[in-house]
């Protein structure tokens, strides 16, 4: 590396940089992060007490016809932890928030099960927020829309 070419303003950034997850990734990368999360095997991120195929992905659980509710609950807890862990989170809050709402929507739509204490109005408002994220994929948007309409 040619140190004589170091631009000093960027060097200043290097010396002062923070390590918060919100500053790791750009807004236009949130869609890629969420897509990667959906494609990730659940065993990579979740501590599960149930047996699960090591290739089962988050998408398999969230969009499957009859998902294991233990795993759906684990996804909800994982994403909730991500939004509440100050300084230790590894997902941007908006991505974790959408994942959280998708897990609740999955339980509502696939098993008619309510896994949140939020009242309908609050739940719908949060799902609408998730639905409106510009980077959201079609399958997730459809899941959220179905859940919102089911509460109407």
């Amino acid at each position, binding site marked *: 590396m040619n*140190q004589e070419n170091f631009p000093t303003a960027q060097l200043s950034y290097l010396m002062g940089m923070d*390590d918060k997850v919100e500053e790791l990734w750009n807004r236009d990368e949130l869609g890629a*992060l969420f897509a990667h999360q959906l494609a990730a095997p659940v065993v*990579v991120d979740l501590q599960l007490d149930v047996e699960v195929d090591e290739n089962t992905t988050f998408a398999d659980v969230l969009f499957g016809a009859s998902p294991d509710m233990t795993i759906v609950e684990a996804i909800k807890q994982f994403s909730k932890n991500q939004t509440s862990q100050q300084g230790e989170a590894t997902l941007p809050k908006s991505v974790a928030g959408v994942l959280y709402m998708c897990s609740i929507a999955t339980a509502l739509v696939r098993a008619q099960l309510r896994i949140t204490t939020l009242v309908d109005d609050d739940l719908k408002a949060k799902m609408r927020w998730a639905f409106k994220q510009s980077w959201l994929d079609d399958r997730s948007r459809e899941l959220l829309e179905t859940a919102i309409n089911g509460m109407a």
Partner: protein
Amino acid sequence: MPKGQPEGRFPTTNWSLIWDAGDEHAQDRNTAVDELLRNYWPALTAHLVMRKRIKSHDAEDLVQGFITAKVLERNLVGTAQKQRGRFRSLLLKSLDNYVANEMAKRSALKRQADRAVPIDPQEVAMQDYSVERPEDAFDIEWARQLLSNVSQRMQAECAANSRDDIWGVFEARILKPATDGTPVADYEQLIAQFGFRSPSQASNALITGKRMYMRILRGVVGEYAANDEDAEAEIRELEQILARR
């Protein structure tokens, strides 16, 4: 502990290095002198060229003489430890004193010839040091050398721990864009290149890289700072010097 080194809070790598360099009986004296020169030469030379307007080849001679006469033979390190002052400031002040004395000697001996004469602004502009404020030349070169050392140490540490992914993602995402102007590697590129299985793995690698970089930076600064507080102040000061350009 090298010969003559006092007990205390400075038994760190660079202090040991400097002690070894000043100790003619030390086994690694030549290595220590080489590393010492490599670390401080650019900053000291930049200061003489940009601030003192001394020709670069003459500045290099003066720096070599300064390091030999002051840092090694007169134990500048010992002085720094006694004063508990900033090593960077002490080094600069000592260099200025040394150069002033050398200039006075030359003048008295009427041995001006072409050595150490002030040069015109056009000639200064042709030097390699791209600083807008000559008074910052020393500090900027110091910071550049320091950050270069930090990068080298981090890469070596990652390799030693078989965590090339941490170095790779840090280099592609942060270091190269900051230092070379290389475009930032986007998320999908990083996933494809390093095979992270989930966003958490990717984020963890990048967070670990950033923390490792800052830890090594603090360590490198700590090798010449008096204490943790002094090290933090030194980092903030160098950051501000680099930011105001």
